[in-house]
């Protein structure tokens, strides 16, 4: 196996990312709205020192949100390329088909990290975090990005069309985000919601990011976070590759053509 095809797939996604600068900039709008509107709004209900504390508390959460949206949308290109035919160019190439998934997930991770770096720079400029915290957030961000890419890959290989992906994403993305501890501490949730947080792999990414910010309460230990993130990512990527290698996944692509 040579790396050239993998580099080609990843390179194509990267060149598209930087070509669509407007999209890149607009991807910064969502976390800013959360931070400034929700953060300030909810913060205003809190008292005194808790107000500043809530903004700091939100930093890992909105960073995780940026990673989640970026990675999921990037994994969507697995479905998008199928819809627009480019997937055929990859399917007929002399590489095992699971490499297509792996390449796309590498691209999704990198895309998420590019957006995360942009956000960190913005937060630095706004004075919400220090350089030290920004650096401490990098490694947890990479692990979270991989986990989000794996979630995206898992959804993508089971989506027959873009519409399909959009439906599943709406079903997934908000529960995954809201029930992760990104916006509020987990231990204050009612018990039945607490269980959902615990089985949500994204929660562990959020938690690991929280560990990097001083004075933010965390719910799990660093070891638990890392173990779950790596374990889930490996399993999810493995299942996504397996499902993608099955022919039935591509039946829509080819049956449409054999008309």
């Amino acid at each position, binding site marked *: 196996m040579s790396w*050239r095809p993998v580099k*080609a797939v990843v390179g194509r996604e990267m060149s598209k990312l930087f070509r669509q600068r407007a999209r890149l900039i607009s991807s910064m709008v969502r976390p800013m709205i959360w931070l400034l509107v929700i953060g300030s709004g909810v913060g205003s209900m809190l008292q005194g020192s808790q107000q500043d504390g809530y903004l700091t508390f939100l930093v890992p959460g909105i960073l995780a949100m940026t990673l989640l949206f970026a990675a999921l949308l990037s994994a969507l290109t697995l479905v998008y390329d199928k819809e627009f035919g*480019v997937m055929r160019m990859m399917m007929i190439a*002399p590489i*095992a088909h699971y490499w297509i998934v792996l390449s796309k997930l590498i691209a999704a991770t990198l895309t998420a990290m590019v957006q995360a770096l942009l956000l960190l720079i913005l937060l630095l400029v706004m004075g919400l975090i220090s350089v030290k915290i920004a650096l401490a957030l990098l490694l947890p961000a990479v692990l979270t990005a991989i986990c989000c890419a794996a979630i995206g890959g898992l959804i993508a290989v089971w989506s027959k069309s873009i519409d399909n992906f959009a439906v599943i994403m709406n079903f997934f993305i908000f529960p995954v985000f809201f029930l992760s501890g990104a916006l509020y501490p987990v231990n204050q949730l009612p018990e039945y919601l607490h269980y959902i947080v615990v089985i949500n792999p994204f929660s562990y990414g959020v938690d690991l990011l929280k560990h990097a910010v001083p004075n933010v309460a965390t719910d799990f230990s660093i070891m638990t976070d890392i173990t779950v993130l790596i374990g889930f990512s490996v399993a999810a990527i493995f299942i996504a590759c397996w499902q993608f290698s099955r022919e039935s996944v591509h039946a829509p692509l080819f049956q449409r053509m*054999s008309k």
Partner: protein
Amino acid sequence: MARNLAIKTEGLTKKFGQTLAVNKLDLEIEAGQFYGLLGPNGAGKSTTIHMLTTMTAATSGEAWIAGQQVSADPVAIRRTVGLVFQDSALDRTMSIDENLQFAAAMYNLAPDVANKRIDELLSVFGLQDKRKRKLVSLSGGQRRAVDIARGVLHKPKVLFLDEPTIGLDLPNRRSIWRFVEQLRRDEGMTVFLTTHYLEEAAACDHVDFFQQGQLQRGGKPQQLMQQLAAYILEVNTPNPENVIAQLTPIFGSPIREDEDLSFKISADDVDFHQLQQTLGDSIASMQWRKPNLNDIYLWTFCSPEQGKIA
């Protein structure tokens, strides 16, 4: 394998649920041949190509490409074959160059090798000045040409063309065929073609007519035409029943489309002028000509014996 076979299949079968798309297909295509698989829509032509190029797995049976078993090592098969899909496989938002560079990298061609090859192919297709152009700005024929260039970047031993000229106008179709001919001449690749435009298949070394997943009739186009009939007689008449009653005893049942009748005539000594006088005013027009591949197609799939008159 005694002979140098580019493609061989034994009992190749594909089922989609209960539908039999390809039924026990046996093919032997020698290296360097220009082979045409012809048949109506939904006959299983594309499915056959997809099985031979590892895009879909056979339900049963086996196929070999250049002596390699298709199911044994799909990646090696994909290295050996080129496939030009019926629908474009290109990214419309990228330029010709970006598309072909991407495809070349997928075939693991080093950049300098890829560049040379892209230059070479684009000059065959007359697109060398358009290399940096976005795909959306090209005509349908030019996009198809880029699609074919993409399919042969890695110099495949066997090139599969699935309806390569579909939706193109006549000049573009002609130029696509010139390119394919040149590629065949220069690189000696075996070409496996499916097409609706039967006149285009006349250049094939061998054609097979395919329906409902089964081979119906095959051979060299020239021979098939000779075997079909000496002449095809086409008659347009306001009273088709009368003419059918009059001529069927002599020539056999015609293919009928409303007021148009088409008889196949085996004898090569028919006096058509005499016939014209006999029919007299009961016909509006008549003409006789040598058969072509369209006639073989019609007589294979729409003949009166088949009970399916179009």
